[in-house]
């Protein structure tokens, strides 16, 4: 694949992630817990982990995090989403070496767990209290379910695009 194609592919994936991110902001959640989100934009990250190179995946995630913070107008949330995002990315990059393309959903679920962990560590550092860890179990429960869903989506995308 030429460099131009690589850049275009990374750009398009960033764009898709941002669109999902912005649409997701309009979906109300029945419960309000700090930091709880569906994280549908992670579909693109999971896909990229399995299809693109490490560097490209990290660039897509970085661009999505920064532009997402700009679009949502919530710059203060960037710290939490970035620490969660990169923790999740690191975990998934390591796990993707062991988990094959038929079990991407599993990798995504582990990624979600680490995403929540990263978020909470950042929140604890910022607020200077450990009591925010009380939210970790709840976030993890919903994170696993959301991670399973994003994983299935990414898995479908990876397997379908490989056939062509």
């Amino acid at each position: 694949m030429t460099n131009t194609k690589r850049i275009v592919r990374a750009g398009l994936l960033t764009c898709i992630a941002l669109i999902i991110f912005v649409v997701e902001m309009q979906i109300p959640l029945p419960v309000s817990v700090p930091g709880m989100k569906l994280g549908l934009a992670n579909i693109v990250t999971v896909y990229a982990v399995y299809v693109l190179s490490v560097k490209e995946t990290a660039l897509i995630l970085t661009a999505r995090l920064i532009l997402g913070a700009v679009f949502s107008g919530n710059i203060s949330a960037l710290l939490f989403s970035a620490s969660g995002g990169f923790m999740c990315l690191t975990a998934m990059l390591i796990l993707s070496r062991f988990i094959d393309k038929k079990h991407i959903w599993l990798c995504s679920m582990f990624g979600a767990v680490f995403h929540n962990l990263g978020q909470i560590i950042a929140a604890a550092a910022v607020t200077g209290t450990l009591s925010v860890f009380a939210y970790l179990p709840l976030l993890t429960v919903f994170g696993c379910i959301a991670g399973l869903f994003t994983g299935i989506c990414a898995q479908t995308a990876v397997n379908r695009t490989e056939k062509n």
Partner: protein
Amino acid sequence: MNRKSRILAVAAMAVIFLTAVILAVHFYVKPKSDRVNIISGGQIVRTIDLSTAEDCQFDIIYEGRRNTVEIKNHTICVISADCPDLICVKTGAMGADSSGPVVCLPNRLVIEFEEASADGKSG
């Protein structure tokens, strides 16, 4: 991916999930004490005993940003704030049946129950 590593990975995920479910349920049971700490920017700015506190309202200001806290019927909640997401307001009251901390990350505010200490008070 062989059978063994697959079972291992699924089992690890199941353990994480079940632990989280158990802890999440545990976290929503009754509070351990009546005393709540209001922590702003990492500093305890107020400690309130909910069992004796009068109903009142007050503002917590952190770097010019405001959260209005209300104490009512021995529960405590944030009724308004100038943060963008208002999660602290939507969290609702803590006291009678919720021990979850009220957190406002943009304004660095945490309202939490004090860990049960050996001050002889019956919880």
